[in-house]
């Protein structure tokens, strides 16, 4: 039956037309279409990856910023704390030093005062002694100018001496 026997002429024309189509489209047809779609797909996947990366990087940046912020606050509070403690220490130290200094100065002043006092006392004592000697001289002179005076003096001295023995405390008062 002719349906099942391939005809030579048609085989030839079929081969020819198929080769024409294949030759034209395998070079200028299908590779361009598939190539374009592949290119587009690649671009899309790359863009997606880039977007993901950018987002990840953004997340990283935010995280970093947050961390930096945290660190900065921590550092500032630390600095504040150390500053406070430092200032306290300084103040305390200054206080102490000032106290010590003032105490030393007071001590020195007291010693000076003591010394001055001693000196003044000594001077006074010698002056008083001199004065009393002078007074005594003067008194003696006046009293020794007259006989009556001499006697009176002697008498008084004797009284005094007597009083002194009776009341020695009186002499201690001076």
């Amino acid at each position: 039956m002719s349906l099942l026997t391939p005809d030579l002429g048609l085989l030839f024309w079929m081969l020819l037309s198929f080769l024409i189509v294949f030759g034209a489209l395998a070079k200028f047809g299908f590779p361009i279409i598939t190539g374009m779609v592949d290119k587009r797909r690649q671009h899309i996947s790359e863009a997606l990856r880039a977007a993901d990366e950018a987002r990840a990087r953004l997340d990283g940046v935010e995280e970093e910023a947050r961390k930096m912020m945290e660190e900065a606050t921590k550092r500032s509070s630390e600095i504040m704390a150390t500053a406070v403690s430092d200032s306290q220490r300084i103040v305390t130290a200054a206080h102490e030093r000032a106290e010590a200094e003032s105490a030393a100065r007071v001590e020195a002043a007291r010693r000076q005062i003591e010394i001055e006092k001693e000196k003044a006392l000594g001077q006074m004592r010698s002056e008083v002694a001199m004065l009393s000697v002078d007074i005594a001289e003067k008194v003696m002179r006046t009293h020794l100018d007259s006989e009556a005076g001499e006697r009176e003096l002697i008498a008084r001295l004797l009284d005094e001496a007597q009083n002194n023995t009776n009341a020695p405390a009186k002499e201690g008062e001076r």
Partner: protein
Amino acid sequence: MKKAVRHIFMLLAVLLTGALQGGVWAQEVEQGVAQTEATDMSAEVVDVEVSDGATEASEEPEKLDVVGLIFDHINDSYSWHIATHKGHHIEIPLLCIVRGEGGDWHLFSSAKVAHGDSYKGFRIASEGEEWEGKLVAEGGDGALYRPLDLSFTKNAAGLMINALLMVAIFLGVARWYKRRNYSIYEVPRGFVGAVEMLVMSLEDDIIRPSVGKDYKRYSPYLLTAFFFIFINNLMGLVPTFPGGANTTGNIAVTLIMALATTFVVTVFGNKEYWKEILWPDVPVWMKFPIPLMPVIELFGVISKPFALTVRLFANILAGHTVILALTCLVFISVSMGTTMNIVMTIFSVLLSVFMLVLEILVAYIQAYVFTMLSSVFIGLSRKEHHAAHKKN
């Protein structure tokens, strides 16, 4: 929504007019039959010959030769017959190219050998003769012989038209990209987008998974095969001239397609593939004294293209036959009376529409199956490592 409704209405309208026209046409034919019968009965003396009467159905003038009509369509022919109007054949003559016995080539129009004419000793063998419907010539010894015949027949012309159409479509699509300087930011819509989607669906769904890693090398061939078959199938469903040639329903066409796949498989098959055939991994006694397994495998190698050839050819042929038979129902039922004829006409048109729609599906499915099997065969011939026994 509105558009869809409009489309449905259009379809219904077309259907109805088709049915009506079919009915009217059938009635005309019927009237003709009636008239002929009348004349036959009344004036037997005149020996009415309504048609030119030389070739077909001379003893039963108006009885439709359905089988002949169907075979006329599904077989190849030397001229492209479009219609017969009042006994006058409207057809496109094509080129006959034959080499006679003496080795000399003859080119002539098929019109010269139409209707039993003879040209330079070449004529188309008539019914009952050997090589019926083919160009034959009488040899020196007076016996008929078949010359070497490379005529540009109806199917050859159809193939060429479809080939050019296909080249135009895909080069057009490729040009679309070129005009946009291959910019990746331009995404096609409409027809180009549809073509791109179809191409990519094939490459992603069949070619890449079936062929394997170097699928890029084979995808142009496989895509060409798919669209060649698909376009030929679809054009075969177009009733008249640019389409209508039963190309993929012709065994020569499908044979070439199958041989192309076999060629690719055989030429690019790797060592693993040939080892699987000639020295498969089976116990030695199955392949040494009597090469049992190699014979089975070689049978598989031969049966693959055979299956590809016959599947496509038989499917398309059957589709064409069924559509033609359903269409002929209109003319067969003429003798059953007007009412029956109208009923059968509507039935025939509805069924024809259904079959045509089904054939569009088949056109796609057969192209798909051919491409898928070709991909699988190529994939098997490119097997990297012996994974599992797979014999086809």
